[in-house]
């Protein structure tokens, strides 16, 4: 008993204790629900068996049913567009801003801090603001596009099936851009200045320096930010709830919103769980890429 106590205060026991708390928490709060979710996707769940743990096992039936539904493929397609367009927009604009602030003009640090406002705002609030901006009748975006002559008539962003998904994408790009900018700024500032001086003396112009020094030196940061972006966009739920609710007619529906809709509005927990499992596979893939890209961050 005494040895155990001294091990906890001075020895390995303390290390184990420190690790045990977060691991225990993660297992309890994330691990168990995740496993339960996987289990549910192989069971038949209805209104009467919701409270029980051991429900009739149906094998892959839920998966077969899911892919037999007419809306599944369009929603998966929407999810793909949402993820690719959001990440591309967030990354390109974030990188552009990071490079812009990297020139370190007077007030750059201060202004960069202000950009973080978009990131600290709750998704529902961002959604509410973009509802105004995107509004078909009096929205400021329509006003700008109309006055500059890009469009002739108003676009009903949230209710036109051709635009509803893009309405959420625009808001999501705005929401995630600042996070991209901050991480990329950190990556940029980690590149030693004398590398650029050496490259300049070696005859490289600004574009060549960007291409041969900045981009390769940023490889691990870019890998990390894109895999994090994949994880974050697959988690993006608030904006759909606030802006389009997945409509009209599923035209802006994506898997993460649909899973919630199936489970908690239609009480089809089995199908909701099945979609979640499919998403878990994608997120796991992104996590592996993320972990692998941060592993190479040590430079020498």
């Amino acid at each position: 008993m005494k040895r155990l106590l001294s091990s906890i205060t001075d020895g390995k026991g303390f290390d184990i204790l420190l690790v045990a708390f977060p691991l225990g928490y993660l297992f309890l709060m994330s691990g168990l629900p995740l496993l339960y979710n996987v289990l549910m996707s192989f069971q038949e769940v209805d209104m009467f068996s919701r409270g029980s743990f051991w429900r009739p096992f149906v094998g892959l039936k839920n998966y077969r049913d899911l892919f037999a539904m007419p809306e599944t493929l369009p929603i998966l397609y929407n999810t793909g567009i949402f993820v690719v367009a959001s990440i591309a927009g967030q990354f390109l604009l974030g990188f552009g801003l990071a490079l812009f602030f990297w020139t370190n003009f007077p007030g750059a640090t201060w202004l960069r801090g202000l950009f973080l406002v978009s990131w600290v705002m709750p998704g529902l609030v961002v959604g509410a603001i973009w509802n105004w901006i995107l509004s078909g009748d009096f929205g400021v975006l329509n006003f700008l596009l109309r006055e500059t002559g890009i469009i002739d008539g108003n676009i009903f962003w949230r209710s036109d099936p051709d635009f509803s998904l893009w309405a959420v994408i625009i808001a999501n790009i705005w929401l995630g851009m600042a996070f991209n900018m901050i991480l990329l700024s950190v990556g940029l500032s980690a590149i030693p200045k004398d590398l650029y001086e050496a490259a300049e003396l070696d005859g490289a112009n600004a574009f060549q320096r960007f291409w041969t020094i900045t981009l390769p030196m940023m490889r691990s940061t870019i890998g990390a930010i894109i895999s994090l972006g994949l994880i974050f966009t697959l988690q993006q739920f608030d904006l759909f709830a606030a802006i389009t609710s997945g409509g009209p007619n599923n035209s802006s529906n994506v898997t993460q919103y649909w899973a919630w809709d199936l489970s908690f509005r239609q009480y089809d927990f089995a199908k909701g769980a099945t979609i979640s499992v499919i998403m878990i596979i994608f997120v796991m893939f992104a996590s592996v890429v993320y972990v692998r890209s941060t592993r190479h961050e040590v430079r020498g």
Partner: protein
Amino acid sequence: MTLQIELSGVNKYYGAFHALKNIDLAIEKGTFVALVGPSGCGKSTLLRSLAGLESISTGDLRIAGDLMTTVPPRKRDVAMVFQTYALYPHMTVEQNLTYSLRIRGASKAAMKKAAADVAATTGLSDLLGRYPRELSGGQRQRVAMSRAIIRNPKAFLFDEPLSNLDAALRVHMRKEIRMLHDRLGATSVYVTHDQIEAMTMADHVVVMRDGIIEQQGRPLDLYDRPANKFVAGFIGSPAMNFIPATVGSDGFSLVTHVGEPQTIVLDRALDPGRSVVAGLRPEHLTVVDGGGMFRFPVGIVETTGSATYISTATTPEITIVDTARRSIRTGDVIELTIRPSDVHVFDTKTGMRL
């Protein structure tokens, strides 16, 4: 001789700070020039201005006869070796060496051959496939130099390239850089705060302080005839002793003001009664057994084997380098002598050589 680098009336301001003050410097083709001085003296700023990494506020810079004052660094055709080496960490040694050629669109075969040729002369042939992080400090240093050599530039600029190496390697690389310079027939400008590096490597030493050139010339000229007290104290190791003194009534002697008044004989006449500073190099002071010019009590004795460093118990302290292995101990009184031609005299106020 043609001038390879020419600076005339160069000034550099950082806001209100005047970093380079009216620098005039002419560097002949094929010479090895050392810029030396304490930190903050402007030597690095001057070098970076040559490279184009800093802009010159006023004045002209010519490289190989062409006006380069406002030309961007990449068009100046000068190569620089950085203190940190600045190797591209994501490229192999070979890619590091051929970077400048790649930028200019050289063919793969030409780059491979150039890298192999340079690597052979600098002993990097076995390391071409490695990354900088897999190299030792000395090897990185060689890569940095090879990267400069491969371009065959109009001038090589070195920014304290040896300060990250250990003492033994530094002495070795010193010789290696000088040999490379001679073999390539290059023009080199070398910044260092180490006067020994400057003296041993350079044909022409430029001593700087507070943005001005205090003195420039051949290393031994600077040692033999320092223009002022600053250069006298900076060049030579251990540093020159400075003793407050007054010129004697005959004009051919100095009366020192350390401890008891004592007399040093001069080989030239100065104004009698003038207040001056005598500069005596530790290696020029000789301990004698009688008939010395002056006597001092001994403070600390340090033996290195080849020489004995004797510090006197006076204020200011006087250092003597003795190579004769005398048994001198703390508390002894020693007699010293110095050849009149080895006595440097400086004005007390201006510090200029008299």
